[in-house]
């Protein structure tokens, strides 16, 4: 399974052994997105034409379709690597390597290649790539890592191809390469003014050796034409016309529809079920028990129902009666955890990291503030409920999966079902929302396990209720904070006593996924005395990485508490927050993941300036400021709120200042910021997962509400262009939102929200 290392490492481990990669590469069949049914690999390669790597068709409207098998041209296409194919007919195809979950990488990553290749975007058709570690390296959607990890290799892929086209042109004209210039998909002879298109050069370039990328000069940022512009999503035309794109849209010949019912209390197993009566129901083809195992991220016990339609499967699942065995099931209750955590965090915990003498500094402080912050478990709630299509046929398993970690599927399925990895073929599909939920492949292994027992392709479909109740949750948290300011109003000490969960029956020193509450990611390097303490509790409720794992909660706790301290010191919060950053400098080893206070200061000042920080606000209105650095991005946000005397909160405006090095796509980048702000507010407002006897109490959107259009604030985004390499935008705009809003509510009302969601304190977002 993929996993994040807790702390500062943001890259899920999706590495697979080389022999596994080889087996996947030699797998037999692919599925054609155009719904023509499975093709042989040979046919498929002919169809898409990219040598050595089959690609699913997904062509931009207005572009010619790729040559079909019937019309494949005799001339050799130019395909210097897995990303680029240029055909003599002028077709330029660029492969998008990573899963598209709404973060925009199916557009942005190909843009990076197109920039260095010097083609006009309108000339390019984008296809979703095969799953192939050898050709594409790690393929996953997580940690906002697609951009930083692929920035260099994709530029190189484009630059190498362009260099070969220039070489081909120089040879054709018998001139030096220096007198050839590439522009908009053609090479210009700067002496004669002659022009050859990339299509005309394709066959000649295909015969040249591929040069070492190290020897190829990449473009300078100031010469970019495409990167930084407003480029709309490559799938937009298909999305707005309802063409099949997503996991749920897949259909294989003779396909049946499956449901899988698990114990409401996580990990409970099946004693018995009324399978015989379920099998009698209309449309039901089969029903059977799957034993499953103990691993949270693997195949769990449950009952599969196979039917001729989704509705008949759902209806049969409603009639299913299961007697569960709760011996190994989760039994936690949220209210018990809250009581336990409140008491525990008041006591001395295990010191995980510290600096200076926090006890002495608090004793010597002029003002001391102690506060208990808590936030709930939350679910991912992607709009597309979990689903997967699988077909086990002639010993081969074909899996069509909306997964954020498609490279992890074959090892998981092989290990679970005892199939050779070489007999498993995985196709990645556009995903109707990830947010970290689909870093887990539990629903994929369920589909495979069901398909393994059925002599037809099956599509497993979860209900919304199942999606909410069988997630891998962002864990709730508890922080008992103590801070001290001295006579000059300087923040001298901060202590945080936390609850850090570990997976029950596993290593107590290892926090659950995304749940390292005692990481000490405070981002205030000037505080001289610090102590971060953990009280470790076991947890059987599955924990997972939820958008901006760790940061999404740490930012709220710390950026709220820093504001409490500036209020206690009677100081302006902008000045106080900037003071915590100290001098502009790069801490640690000057890696992108190390905190750079210069960038923090710049975005904080910009957000304040653009929001006109400190302007007089009428009664009932307030401004709140916050900052957080996560996923390599620096974000400061100012929220402006109006609070009615009935505690109805209107978030009127959110001003965002961002530094992600360079913004690669204005369209997708701003969309991510607006989405993150909205997501942050949605979560802050009223989302909470509770559980009793190890079973989740929420189901559909009536009990787990998402923000709707009328409550969305005006969002303004301002970009700092810095000299640093571009980083991702799926996550880092989210963490500062919650503290910006709760700090603004404090400014408007004098009330400090310390419990989330804020509906628990009687505040309602309107």
């Amino acid at each position, binding site marked *: 399974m993929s996993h994040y290392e807790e702390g500062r490492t943001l890259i899920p481990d999706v590495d697979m052994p080389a022999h596994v990669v080889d087996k996947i590469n030699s797998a037999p069949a692919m599925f054609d997105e155009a719904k023509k049914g499975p093709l042989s690999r040979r046919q498929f390669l002919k169809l898409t034409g990219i040598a050595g790597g089959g690609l699913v068709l997904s062509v931009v409207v207005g572009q010619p379709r790729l040559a079909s098998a019937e019309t494949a041209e005799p001339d050799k296409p130019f395909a210097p690597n897995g990303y680029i194919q240029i055909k003599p007919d002028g077709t330029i195809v660029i492969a998008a390597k990573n899963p598209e979950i709404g973060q925009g990488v199916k557009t942005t990553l190909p843009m990076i290649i197109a920039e260095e290749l010097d083609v006009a975007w309108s000339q390019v058709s984008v296809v979703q790539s095969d799953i192939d570690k050898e050709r594409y390296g790690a393929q996953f959607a997580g940690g906002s890592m697609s951009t930083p990890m692929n920035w260099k290799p994709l530029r190189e892929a484009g630059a190498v191809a362009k260099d070969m086209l220039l070489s081909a042109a120089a040879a054709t004209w018998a001139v030096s390469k220096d007198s050839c210039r590439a522009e908009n998909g053609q090479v210009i002879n700067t002496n004669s003014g002659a022009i050859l298109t990339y299509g005309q050069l394709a066959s000649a370039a295909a015969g040249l050796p591929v040069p070492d990328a190290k020897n190829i000069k990449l473009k300078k940022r100031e010469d970019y034409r495409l990167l930084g512009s407003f480029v709309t999503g490559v799938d937009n035309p298909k*999305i707005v*016309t309802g063409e099949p794109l997503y996991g749920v849209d897949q259909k294989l010949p003779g396909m049946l529809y499956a449901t899988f019912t698990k114990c409401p209390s996580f990990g409970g197993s099946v004693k018995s079920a009324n399978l015989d009566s379920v099998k009698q129901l209309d*449309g039901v083809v089969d029903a059977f028990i799957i034993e499953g195992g103990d691993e949270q991220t693997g195949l769990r016990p449950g009952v599969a129902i196979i039917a001729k339609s989704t509705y008949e499967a759902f209806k049969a699942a409603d009639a299913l009666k299961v007697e569960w065995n709760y011996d190994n099931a989760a039994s936690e209750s949220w209210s018990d955890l809250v009581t336990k955590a409140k008491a525990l965090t008041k006591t001395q915990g295990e010191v995980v990291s510290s600096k200076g003498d926090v006890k002495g500094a608090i004793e010597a402080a002029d003002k001391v503030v102690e506060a208990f912050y808590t936030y709930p478990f939350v679910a991912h709630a992607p709009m597309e409920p979990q689903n997967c299509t699988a077909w086990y046929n002639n010993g081969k398993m074909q899996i069509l999966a909306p997964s954020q970690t498609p490279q992890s599927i074959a090892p998981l399925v092989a290990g679970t079902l005892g199939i050779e990895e070489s007999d498993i073929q995985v196709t990645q599909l556009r995903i109707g929302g990830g947010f970290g939920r689909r870093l887990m492949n539990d629903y994929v292994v369920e589909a495979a396990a069901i398909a393994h027992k059925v002599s037809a392709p099956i599509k497993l479909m979860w209900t919304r209720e199942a999606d909410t109740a069988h997630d891998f949750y962002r864990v709730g948290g508890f922080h008992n904070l103590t801070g001290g300011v001295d006579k000059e109003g300087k923040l001298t000490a901060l202590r945080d006593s936390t609850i850090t969960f570990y997976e029950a029956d596993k290593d107590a020193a290892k926090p659950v996924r995304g749940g390292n509450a005692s990481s000490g990611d405070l981002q205030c390097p000037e505080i001289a005395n610090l102590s971060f303490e953990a009280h470790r509790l076991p947890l059987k409720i599955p924990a997972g990485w939820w958008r901006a794992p760790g940061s999404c909660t740490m930012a709220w706790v710390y950026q709220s508490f820093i504001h409490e301290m500036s209020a206690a010191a009677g100081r302006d919060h902008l000045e106080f927050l900037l003071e915590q950053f100290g001098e502009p400098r790069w801490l640690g080893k000057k890696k992108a993941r190390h905190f750079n206070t210069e960038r923090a200061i710049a975005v904080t000042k910009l957000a304040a300036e653009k929001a006109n920080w400190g302007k007089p606000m009428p009664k009932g209105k307030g401004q709140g400021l916050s900052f957080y650095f996560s996923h390599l991005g620096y974000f400061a946000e100012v929220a402006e709120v109006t609070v009615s005397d009935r505690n109805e909160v209107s978030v009127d405006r959110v001003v965002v200042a961002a530094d992600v090095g360079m913004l690669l796509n204005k369209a*997708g980048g701003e969309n991510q910021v607006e989405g*993150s702000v909205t997501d942050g507010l949605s979560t802050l407002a009223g989302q909470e997962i509770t559980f009793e006897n190890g079973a989740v109490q929420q189901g559909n959107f*009536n009990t787990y509400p998402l923000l709707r259009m009328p409550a969305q604030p005006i969002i303004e985004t301002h970009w700092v262009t810095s000299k640093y390499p571009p980083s991702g935008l799926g996550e880092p705009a989210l963490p500062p939102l919650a503290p910006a809003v709760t700090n603004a509510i404090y400014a408007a009302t004098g009330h400090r929200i310390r419990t989330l969601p804020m509906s628990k304190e009687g505040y309602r977002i309107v």
Partner: protein
Amino acid sequence: MITLRVNGKDRKLDDIDPSTPLLWVLRDHLDMVGTKFGCGKGLCGACTVHLNGSAIRSCSLPISAANGQSITTIEGLAKQDSNGVVQFHPLQQAWVEHDVPQCGYCQAGQLMSAAALLQQNPNPNDDEIESAMAGNICRCGTYKRIKKAIHTAAKAEASS
């Protein structure tokens, strides 16, 4: 037997459970998967289609209640001109231009709600848009762009 007129074509369904929601008839029986399953309870709007021109949640409408009636789905929002060339609805055009979608999953439902709104109110203001669109959830938070795109489409229709 159930008969429907879907996007201008007559469709017949033999041997179908009359309680089957229109959503699953479209997706599983008629192979039109543009209309999306989000909640199954009429709470999110992902499954919005037009029934005789009005926006409804297809996940909550039994097929028996749609018998003999006219349905428009996202697949039928664009029109073909006399030369057979597909002409986007102004909303589809605006959606693409403003780069509304993130994950895109809810957008078919958003578009169908927006199309029904413009049918009734060709030039809605922000409040009218918000109240007409409040039944459609976008988990990715594209509301700002949806609003902008509806205004753009309304202007385009007014000037055409």
